[in-house]
């Protein structure tokens, strides 16, 4: 896995939005973004702002239950995964995760640390941590 090259201090959710919107601008087809952080650090919240930056109008809800939710209507297709409930990586191959990875869209993967072995080489990692105060977060990125 690659090194952390920048650390971003998030003061509140507005900062999360700013970060998400600007990240969305730089995304291109075939990008895979791993979102790694504890319960409630804001993986789904960040995804919703990235989606907004991709001009996706539909609301992004948590994919914990269905494991993947697809949004095709934006600047790029968005495949939003939550692999929290995945135990066996084989299942992800069965649902064709590689087609998502190497497809025409962007993959955002919550709890990606659980499937580290099967992530593509070019995966961008964001580690989300709680800050000291309410609303504060620290993002550590490998890109």
């Amino acid at each position, binding site marked *: 896995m690659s090194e952390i090259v920048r650390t971003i201090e998030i003061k509140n959710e507005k900062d999360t939005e700013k970060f998400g919107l600007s990240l969305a601008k730089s995304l291109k087809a075939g990008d895979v973004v791993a979102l790694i952080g504890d*319960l*409630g650090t804001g993986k*789904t*919240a960040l995804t*919703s702002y990235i989606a907004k930056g991709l001009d996706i109008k539909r*609301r992004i*809800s*948590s994919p*914990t*239950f*269905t*494991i*993947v*939710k*697809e949004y095709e209507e934006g600047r790029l297709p968005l495949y939003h995964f939550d692999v*929290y*409930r*995945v*135990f*066996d990586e*084989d*299942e992800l191959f*069965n*649902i064709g995760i590689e087609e998502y990875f190497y497809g025409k869209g962007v993959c955002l993967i919550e709890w990606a640390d659980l499937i580290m072995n099967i992530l593509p080489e070019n995966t961008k990692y964001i580690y989300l941590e709680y800050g000291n105060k*309410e609303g504060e977060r620290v993002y550590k990125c490998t890109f």
Partner: protein
Amino acid sequence: MKDGKFLTLGIETSCDETAISVVADGRQVWSNVISSQIEIFKNYGGVVPEIASRHHLENINKVLEEALKVADVTLDDIDLIGVTEGPGLIGALLMGVATAKAIAFAKDIPLVGVHHLFGHISANFLEDENLEPPFLALITSGGHTEIVQVKSYTDCEILGGTRDDAVGEAYDKVARVLGLGYPGGPKIDKIAKSGNPEAVNFTRVLLEKDSYDFSFSGLKTQVLNYINTEKQAGREVCREDVAASFQQAVMEVVVKKTMNAVNLTGALKLVMAGGVAANSKLRSMLESETEKAGIKLYCPKPILCTDNGAMIGSAAYYKYKALGEDELNMDASSNLPLERN
């Protein structure tokens, strides 16, 4: 047909359960066989999709046999096959859809794909033979929190839904935080009975004034914060109090928005659906609110609230009557939208 009744075979495999039923005339449950895999999943603290699909595969023939046997019919008596086409875990859904197609093809029986949530709503048609649309439905489950205006057996409009975590999901996540294991919802409900719902004042997230949407993702952070703060201060955390306070915060919001939607639509009937409809707090709160409002409340018995084949059979029956059969090339879809059954 048997005894002059139109028989639908309902197949449901969207998540944990492999479930098949025989439903007569869309209203009577002749059999309702559910093979649950929750015991297996307890060891892993969650649903294990790979095991889920493997077990569906192992179970489905046994469940089918049993469903036919209990109903005392054979496949030759079946007039229609209904199957959940989505939403759900794709691998699990595919098991049901493949089975349904195989039987439909081999026996030349019409096939209809059903939206899982329309299935949950239809559980009420089995509970009360006289219930008919229109009505308002509150669907609460592991993957859904939706207020739906049901206009007919096949048409509905979503007034609001969750913007992040579903109710059942919030329960599961908080149960994990409290060390209660999986599935957490029923356990929170249970221990909350001996807790104080006013012990912790968790935020009631109501969003915009006229919104019927929900947001529960902030609650898990609040529960985590509360527990950390208490631990740091060296105080013992009372799980019963946290559970009761969490439940109070969630259900107050759910009930308030639901009753607002009742007023908005002028609905005379309110229908509960989905796994969380079995929650005792939600039931008792809605019972007293609907009584005050002078409208009727419907709630399926617990066995029809959880995922089951009978609800799919009922939904399929009415969809077939209104819209006819589906093509055999219909397919499972993990996030099927609910504009129409």
